[in-house]
């Protein structure tokens, strides 16, 4: 089958050896690449209940059938592991030349197991001590640039911060602490290079399709990302009462206008860049000081998490904090979320030390990354910190399954609230972009109902398809029918007949696979819940004042989601479906789920 190499590279760091292992063709067709293949490899290479920071924990870098083709935004790879933050299956994507170079090694994925005896780097087949330990990912990549394309961790990964990232070309596989998994293996960097071409069944047809997609991706469907980028969200979210502020105590920030991209454009130097093989060019870079060089890449999620969420309205401070997170290898959302939670606890007198709202967060980011003093507690994430504090602190920790919420106020965006609750990765906007429905006139965003359920399921399916092809989600608006056009791409790449239904079936299989993986790792129905704050406190002020998300409403939506997915009412994957997937994918999910009783 074209489009795949049919094998993966397995690196055993403990033994210092690597070997090529075959991938069954039918598995490749059933899960594609990216998050689908990565999840399959993770589950295939591990036993239930393993410690994500142990040597046995697999760390998977998964490529995809479209990588290396001329399709815009296809140069992405997925990192998949068990998250040390959530304890569940986690995947994170990054756009990078690393994806292209990795696949040119003649493999569909790289699986790293074991751990090095000393800090090391794996460079195109050679494992050697690293001289980059203690340096940033960018510095590490610069030092190794002549040897290939680099995925590396920063100091946060070395110190096992539970929300450390893995970085490639300055882009981060950011969520869930996969950098800590790499750090636990004492692997500073993975360097790939190769010259193996991926066979494509109908290159001419694919090039025609790629040209069409490039043209559409340069049109109005992606104009928002090109013109202002995701930072254009901040003022819009503020105006509709959806901007999380001061640890979700408010949804409207008095300093929002100072942080608005619309205003920045007139005030500071700016330039636009793009990822590898991308014709959208959504990266917005600004100068940290007026008159400075526009070097800091910032997205809405970093802007909100290091701004309104922690009570900071100084744009220079927000840009500097975003740059510092990038340098240290910290997930900006979890860093901001954990800091904001600690700030509220400090405000309430539950903590006698730690940051306060409005503080300069730079020193705190440094302490987190180095686990210095109180930073050591912050490095554990908001859920673990809350459990340490005790009492009702966990009600206020802004997380689902341990993963901190991105910048979407769930009481004001209730389709997204459902997406947060049921997502296998935890509170997440990239695996469930149900907010798209909330920002439309097709649902009532302040009163989630059956339409929200439909939107959440559909958004999850589309995300799973894009994340396994892999294509960037920013191109999604350029498709008239994502599944049908994806089928066309896959047919041209693989030479097999694909239909829209086939692609949608793959997407649903991946959603089920991740859920079963979570069941294997101890998921319970009570994990699909939002913190109590969101269910008991109405929004107190601002445009969405009074908005409530009663627990009964969320539970009804979750039941609707489970029914739509074909799960049991409590959320377990039915035994018949699990057994069918075990046969299809050659996996053993063990004695998980299947109508268990929720004891939590």
């Amino acid at each position, binding site marked *: 089958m074209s489009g795949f190499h049919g094998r993966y590279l397995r690196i055993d760091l403990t033994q210092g050896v690597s070997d090529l292992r075959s991938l069954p063709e039918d598995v490749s067709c059933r899960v594609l690449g990216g998050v689908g293949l990565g999840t399959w490899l993770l589950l295939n290479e591990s036993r239930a209940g393993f410690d994500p920071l142990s040597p046995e924990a697999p760390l998977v870098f998964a490529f995809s059938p479209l990588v290396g083709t001329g399709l815009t935004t296809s140069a992405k790879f997925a990192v998949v592991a068990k998250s040390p933050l959530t304890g569940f299956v986690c995947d994170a994507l990054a756009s990078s030349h690393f994806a292209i170079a990795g696949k040119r090694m003649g493999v569909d994925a790289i699986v790293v197991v074991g751990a090095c005896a000393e800090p090391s780097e794996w460079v195109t087949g050679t494992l050697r001590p690293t001289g980059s330990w203690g340096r940033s990912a960018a510095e590490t990549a610069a030092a190794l640039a002549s040897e290939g394309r680099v995925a590396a961790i920063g100091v946060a990964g070395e110190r096992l911060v539970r929300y450390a990232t893995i970085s490639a070309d300055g882009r981060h596989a950011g969520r869930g602490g996969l950098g800590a998994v790499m750090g636990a293996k004492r692997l500073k960097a993975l360097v790939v290079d190769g010259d193996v071409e991926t066979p494509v069944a109908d290159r001419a047809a694919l090039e025609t399709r790629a040209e069409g997609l490039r043209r559409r991706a340069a049109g109005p469907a992606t104009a928002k990302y090109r013109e202002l980028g995701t930072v*254009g969200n901040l003022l819009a979210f503020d105006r*509709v009462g959806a901007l999380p502020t001061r640890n979700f105590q408010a949804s409207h920030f008095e300093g929002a206008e100072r942080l608005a991209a*619309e205003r920045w454009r007139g005030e500071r130097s700016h330039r636009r860049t793009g990822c590898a093989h991308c014709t959208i060019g959504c990266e917005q870079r600004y100068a940290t000081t007026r008159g400075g060089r526009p070097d800091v890449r910032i997205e809405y999620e970093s802007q909100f998490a290091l701004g309104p969420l922690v009570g900071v309205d100084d744009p220079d401070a927000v840009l500097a904090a975003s740059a510092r997170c990038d340098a240290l290898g910290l997930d900006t959302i979890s860093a901001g979320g954990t800091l904001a939670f600690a700030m509220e606890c400090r405000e309430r007198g539950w903590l006698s030390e730690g940051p306060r709202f409005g503080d300069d967060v730079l020193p705190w980011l440094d302490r987190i990354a180095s686990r210095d003093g109180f930073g050591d507690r912050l490095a554990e994430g908001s859920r673990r910190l809350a459990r340490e504090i005790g009492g009702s602190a966990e009600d206020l920790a802004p997380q689902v399954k341990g993963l901190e919420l991105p910048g979407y106020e769930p009481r004001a965006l209730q389709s997204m609230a459902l997406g947060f609750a049921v997502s296998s990765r935890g509170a997440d906007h990239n695996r469930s972009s149900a907010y798209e429905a909330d920002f439309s006139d097709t649902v009532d965003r302040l009163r989630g109902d059956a339409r929200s359920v439909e939107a959440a399921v559909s958004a999850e399916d589309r995300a799973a398809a894009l994340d396994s092809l892999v294509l960037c989600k920013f191109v999604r608006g350029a498709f008239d029918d994502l599944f049908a056009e994806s089928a066309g791409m896959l047919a041209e790449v693989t030479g097999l007949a694909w239909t829209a239904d086939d692609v949608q079936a793959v997407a649903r299989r991946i959603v089920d696979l991740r859920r079963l993986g979570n069941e294997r790792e101890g998921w319970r129905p009570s994990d699909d819940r939002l913190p109590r704050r969101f269910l008991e406190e109405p929004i107190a002020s601002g445009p969405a004042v009074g908005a409530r998300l009663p627990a009964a409403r969320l539970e009804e939506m979750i039941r609707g989601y489970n029914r739509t997915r074909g799960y049991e009412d409590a959320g377990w994957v039915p035994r018949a479906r699990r057994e069918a997937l075990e046969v299809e994918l050659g996996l053993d999910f063990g004695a998980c789920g299947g109508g268990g009783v929720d004891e939590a």
Partner: protein
Amino acid sequence: MGRAKAWLPWFGGRTLVEHVVERLRPAVDEVVVVTSADLDLPPLEARVVRDREPERGPLAGLRDGLAAVESDFAFVTATDAPFLTPAYVGAMLDRGVACAPVADGHVQVLSAVMPRAGAALAERLLTAGRARPLALLEALDFVAIDEGELDVGETPPWLGFNTPEAYLDAVRAEDPGAQCEVELLGRAATDGVPPVVTSPVGSLGDVLAHVTTGRELTLVEEDRVARAHLVSLGGRDLVRALGLPVGPGERVTVLDAQAGG
């Protein structure tokens, strides 16, 4: 109407429900607001009671409201009664009996005085399959007051509205020069238009037409808000329908349609 009446803007930066509560408060011991289980409300100086059986119609809500009051008599009004005055409410309550005005031959059921004991009667009527509030007034043997007996001025305090046009007429009756404001964000803000402009109140279509007149900015396509944009009314309703009303002091925000990550 297309929008929740309680949240429609009135003057002074208040929503209609806030305005009506404010008008009631000087005339009564306590304001009780009955609302459906699903409708959120702004913070009010009132006790909020959830309608236990909204599917049974307005009489069920009236029953729940009367059951919640502590006074012997309650003045009953709808949310869409912006011209209510404390003097009128006080005068009605001073009658000390179940009563309601009659205007143009119509009993103004939702501008009436009813006894707390009416709650039990309402329950019996509901059980008998009678769900209209007028049935309760009739069962209470209410006193009908001809509007001529009431000093209510040109705009009667029970005047309400059920269409966007009627709402806007009521707004203009209060202030013929009422204005709203339009904020242009995202891509709309980069088109050289000042970020906030004012417009007379009107339908959303009228307001957007006012904003774009003389400017190279397309906000409407095919009788809807253009695909590239989405409009927030008052920060709550996200809409594309041009017939929806925009009220006094209301902020219309034009957003990028692809808001989010």
